[in-house]
């Protein structure tokens, strides 16, 4: 939607959206300069849930940081677990048994589905549809029950270990996962697509809203579904393969429309692709140990290490610098939504308030991950 009126910068008022606001899903504050219902300037203000995880990483040993990783992106905690395990394994040169890699992929992808389901639910809530939230939670509950079986916790997992995973999966988990795949595939067409995706109100609400050009994505470093909704074929799992992802046959959904609808469709298709990955991983699952040989006290060689994983929100990077000691010397977390949100100000300019909130919902923000 183009700006139909000329914005008058002399008659503006400031609207504080947040830190407590139903649409920001957490404690994000956006300082909006408004002209009526049109946004003249949008300025996100961060840091309301900042916990200085990077300093905490320096204060403890490598293993002691593992529980912290789940507290950042609490919706896709296993990917953060995975990212941290990967970068430390890279630095310390730890081998991971194949079965553990498969289990990692299965659990991370299950968690990705849960994350996308919750995004879908929350996005619909932003758009005023309450019922889809409960339907999505019904499915998400099944995923969480499955993950609780293997990890022992429901949301903030601490499941990965350097050199493997904490616990092996059992037959019940495998059977439950297969049931879930069947169930989600059965429910997807009617409860998700017929009720919501094809709904004219939703289409009119998010189509052509929040256009992010591919160039903007590159300049702001947007990744994940935001970039893929703008026609950029970038997925860390494909571009910079890690773990056992190269062994699976899956597609990276890319949409060229650049609008909120495109981002919506990317995530809906990603759930289907994640189901495919899980299915293949369950079929190929090798036998063997789930924990490799790892020294009890890690002392990686001094040097600069970087490792990226694809979370539900984009590319998560760990920039780890070691000095040969027991603790990380420096850890920088490159969280995907931090970069994704930074383009909000530029894109939201000239939007209507309601559209800007729909656009914000389509970015899939998780505030603790932005603030770290």
């Amino acid at each position, binding site marked *: 939607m183009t700006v139909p009126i000329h914005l008058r910068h002399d008659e503006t*008022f400031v*609207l504080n959206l947040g830190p407590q*606001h*139903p*649409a920001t899903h957490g404690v994000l504050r956006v300082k909006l300069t*408004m002209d*009526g*219902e049109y946004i003249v300037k949008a300025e996100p203000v961060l840091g309301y849930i900042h916990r200085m995880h990077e300093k905490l990483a320096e204060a403890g040993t490598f293993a002691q940081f593992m529980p912290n990783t789940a507290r950042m992106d609490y919706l896709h905690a296993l990917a953060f677990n995975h990212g941290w395990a990967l970068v430390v394994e890279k630095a310390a040169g730890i081998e991971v048994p194949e079965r553990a890699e498969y289990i990692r992929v299965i659990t991370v992808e299950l968690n990705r589905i849960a994350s996308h389901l919750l995004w879908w639910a929350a996005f*619909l*809530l*932003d*758009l*005023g*549809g*309450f*019922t*889809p939230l*409960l*339907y999505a939670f*019904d499915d998400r509950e099944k995923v969480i029950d499955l993950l609780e079986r293997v990890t022992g916790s429901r949301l903030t997992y601490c499941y990965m270990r350097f050199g493997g995973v904490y616990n092996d999966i059992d037959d019940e988990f495998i059977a439950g996962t297969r049931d879930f795949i069947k169930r989600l595939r059965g429910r997807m067409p009617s409860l998700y697509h017929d*009720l*919501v995706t094809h*709904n004219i*109100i*939703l289409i*009119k*609400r998010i189509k052509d809203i929040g256009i992010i050009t591919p160039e903007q994505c590159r300049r702001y470093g947007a990744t994940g579904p935001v970039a893929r909704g703008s026609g950029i074929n970038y997925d860390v799992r494909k571009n910079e393969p890690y773990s056992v992802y190269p062994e699976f046959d899956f597609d990276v959904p890319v949409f060229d429309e650049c609008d909120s609808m495109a981002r919506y469709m990317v995530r809906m298709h990603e759930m289907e692709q994640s189901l495919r990955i899980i299915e293949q991983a369950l079929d190929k699952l090798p036998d063997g140990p789930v924990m490799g040989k790892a020294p009890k006290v890690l002392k990686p060689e001094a040097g600069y290490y970087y490792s990226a994983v694809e979370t539900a929100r984009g590319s998560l990077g760990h920039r780890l610098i070691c000095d040969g000691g027991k603790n990380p010397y420096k850890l920088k977390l490159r969280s995907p939504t931090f970069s994704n949100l930074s383009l909000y100000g530029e894109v939201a300019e000239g939007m*209507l*308030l*309601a*559209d800007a*909130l*729909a656009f914000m919902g389509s970015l899939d923000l998780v505030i603790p991950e932005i603030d770290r």
Partner: protein
Amino acid sequence: METSIWRALLYLVGIMAFAGLNAAYLGWCERKGAARIQRRIGPCEAGYAGLLQPLADGLKLMSKQLLVPDGVDGIIFRVAPVLAMIPAITSMVVIPFSENIGARAMELSVLLLFALASISMIAILLGGWASGNKYAVISAARSVSQNLAYEIPMLITVITVVLISGSLNLREIAIDQQGGFWHWNIFRLENGHFLTMWISFIIFFICSVAETNRAPFDMAEAESELVAGFMTEYGSMGFGLFMMGEYLNIVVGACLTATLFLGGWDCPFGKTPGVWWFLIKIYILIFTFIWIRWTYPRTQIYRLLNLSWKILIPFSLINLLITAALIKVF
């Protein structure tokens, strides 16, 4: 003379009781309905199946302090919730529940209803404006433009009904439709009105959803955008009155739809007309309101205005023309 005083008292009490019960228990119905749609069970703790929940909510709201924040326009702030409630109750006066039950059968009752309906819009405007809250002011402005846009197609469709029945009296309109569903305005066989009247009915129904600020047209209290819209600063019974006003407006809208299009108290099979048929009709309509609310996401303010100005108004005008032509031809 004495009998008419008793009659007036009886109707006063009756209408108040009907309004009060509806306002309280529609909240319960809404919560239960929403819960069933979402496969929950809804309120279940207070009384059997949560039937005492409205009472508990009412008690809680009444026992709270009526907070008037600093910097609001005190008088208007206090008056607005009352203003939201009064017109809704007053509207009940002219609604014919059956041939013999109805407080007042006025000649211009349709006009009176619409006049009263626009007062509740003013209540929202005043409430939002007096709050001095930016969200509330935006909500008030939205609500006014929305109600303006939807009153036009609503009135035009009502004119088609009035043309057919030849009266502005709701009771006369209902009596005109007696004798089975093929006499109801929506399916009226006579003069071939069924060709256009079902469209009128849909337009009227959409408009009444929009007029009562119900989802998917709840722009005024879009909670994910405007927090709670015009109600942001209200607490305790001020908030309670707004909520009750909203539910009463739904009841009035359903009554009006039932009377104008669905034959009022008439039985669909042409036998045993009576107040129960009227009640069945309005509660089916109210359930549809609830059903719609818990199915769709919210629309956007300009989409909503587009719907009114680009689709509903042209269609209702064409409908009006065809209806008038049909009456003239036959």
